[in-house]
């Protein structure tokens, strides 16, 4: 068990393993995502309330879902960084943060564009959108702090602390935003909660969520490899690896 844990912390080992897994992650993820999107766009039935604009759900929900879970993953990695000082964990935080920021932005953007035909306005200050916006700010803070500190080790630790502070804060932010929202009259437009979604709708949704997860895994591996090359540039194996062409 500890042997495995130790191995997992070795960047060189991870680099090789990642190389082996990445094609699978990429192609499987791409197939699932595209399958889900094509199904959702062209074959899923029309929503009786919102019409065709609901088809945005097949990209909006995966982005929003992933945006939130990536932050949780980063927080877990942050704990591992601070407690066990595992190298790979802080690499993950650094590699995932920009991806999470982009996904949050995509969730916000698709939400806004979806809102126009549904609510008649691009943006309302309701609890869910506002929390998402704050999540974007948190992500950007992590990205900026990471690139502002040039020393790699202290940058990783500082970022881990910030992620943890953020994750403790997220529930507080969420509840205070919801309270704020009820204080000012709740949004007049509300998405009708449907008790059950027909399978023709949720299966493609599930596919695209899974696909995006796998693609995120691929992106995270790729970016972690880059971070490893930077961090370990003075080691023998990276020098050998780079001078033999870097593949």
């Amino acid at each position: 068990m500890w042997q495995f844990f130790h191995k997992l912390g070795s960047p060189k080992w991870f680099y090789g393993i990642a190389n082996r897994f990445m094609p699978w992650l990429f192609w499987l993820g791409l197939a699932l995502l595209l399958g889900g999107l094509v199904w959702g766009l062209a074959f899923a039935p029309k929503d009786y309330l919102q019409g065709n604009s609901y088809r945005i759900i097949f990209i909006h929900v995966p982005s929003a879902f992933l945006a939130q879970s990536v932050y949780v993953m980063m927080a877990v990695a942050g704990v591992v960084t601070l407690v066990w000082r595992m190298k790979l964990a802080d690499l993950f935080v650094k590699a995932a943060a920009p991806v999470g920021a982009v996904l949050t932005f995509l969730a916000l953007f698709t939400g806004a564009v979806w809102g126009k035909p549904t609510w008649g306005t691009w943006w309302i200050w309701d609890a869910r959108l506002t929390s998402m916006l704050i999540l974007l700010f948190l992500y950007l803070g992590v990205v900026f702090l990471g690139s502002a500190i040039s020393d790699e080790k202290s940058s990783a630790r500082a970022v881990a602390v910030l992620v943890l502070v953020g994750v403790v804060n997220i529930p507080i932010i969420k509840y205070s935003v919801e309270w704020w929202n009820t204080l000012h009259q709740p949004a007049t437009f509300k998405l009708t909660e449907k008790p059950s979604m027909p399978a023709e709708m949720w299966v493609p949704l599930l596919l695209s969520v899974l696909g995006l997860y796998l693609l995120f895994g691929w992106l995270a591996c790729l970016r972690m490899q880059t971070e490893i090359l930077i961090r370990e540039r003075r080691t023998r194996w990276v020098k050998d690896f780079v001078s033999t062409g870097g593949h």
Partner: protein
Amino acid sequence: MTARQPGVALVTAQVGTASAMWTVVRRDLKSSFRQRQDLLNPLLFFFMVVTLFPLGVSPEVSFLQRSGSGILWVAALLATLLSLDHLFRHDFDDGTLEQMVLQPQPLFLLVLAKTLAHWLVTGLPLILLAPVLGIMLHLEGNSIAVLCLTLLIGTPVLSLIGAIGAALTLGLRAGGVLLSLLIIPLYIPVLIFGTGTVAAAADGTPVGGYLALMAAFLVLAITLAPFAAAAALRISLSNS
């Protein structure tokens, strides 16, 4: 007294002021784009400050529509203020500023070039982001257009006036805070007319007069502020 003796080969060739200014602008832009994060900081700050108002006051559409232009202007002003500390600080720290003062070209024009570069990387992005925030604050299309126009005229004034403050507080320990205290009072007229123009547009009154007045501010700032900033730079360098 013989001014020129055979031994010394004096330099007579000269580089034109315009090309020297261009060199300054290019170097500053290049430097800024190598440190992209510094470009995004004021922009993000702008966004966040705007977000605080619906959260802190009210998310009601009627309130946001009424005060949206004021919120955006105040946020843009604060974001500019935040970025001003960088205007001369890096150059001061690495000695580029000394070299600039020792250039044969008039210093105030070089300061103008630096301010232009500063505006291109801070003021201009704010204007580009403003429509998005305007939509989020439920401003009307016409108001957003006028708002962007006032920002286009107003933010260079903010940069120019700010350059004076940045030059004066250069090399001081509490420079950042002091800079705000010095500069905010000077920003008030621009703020008043910036938001006033948008309010007039929302009421449907013609805004040509307001815009002309703001343009007059801009002309005044372009002609006077670089002199003041150049003088302040000499003083700050003399003390270091």
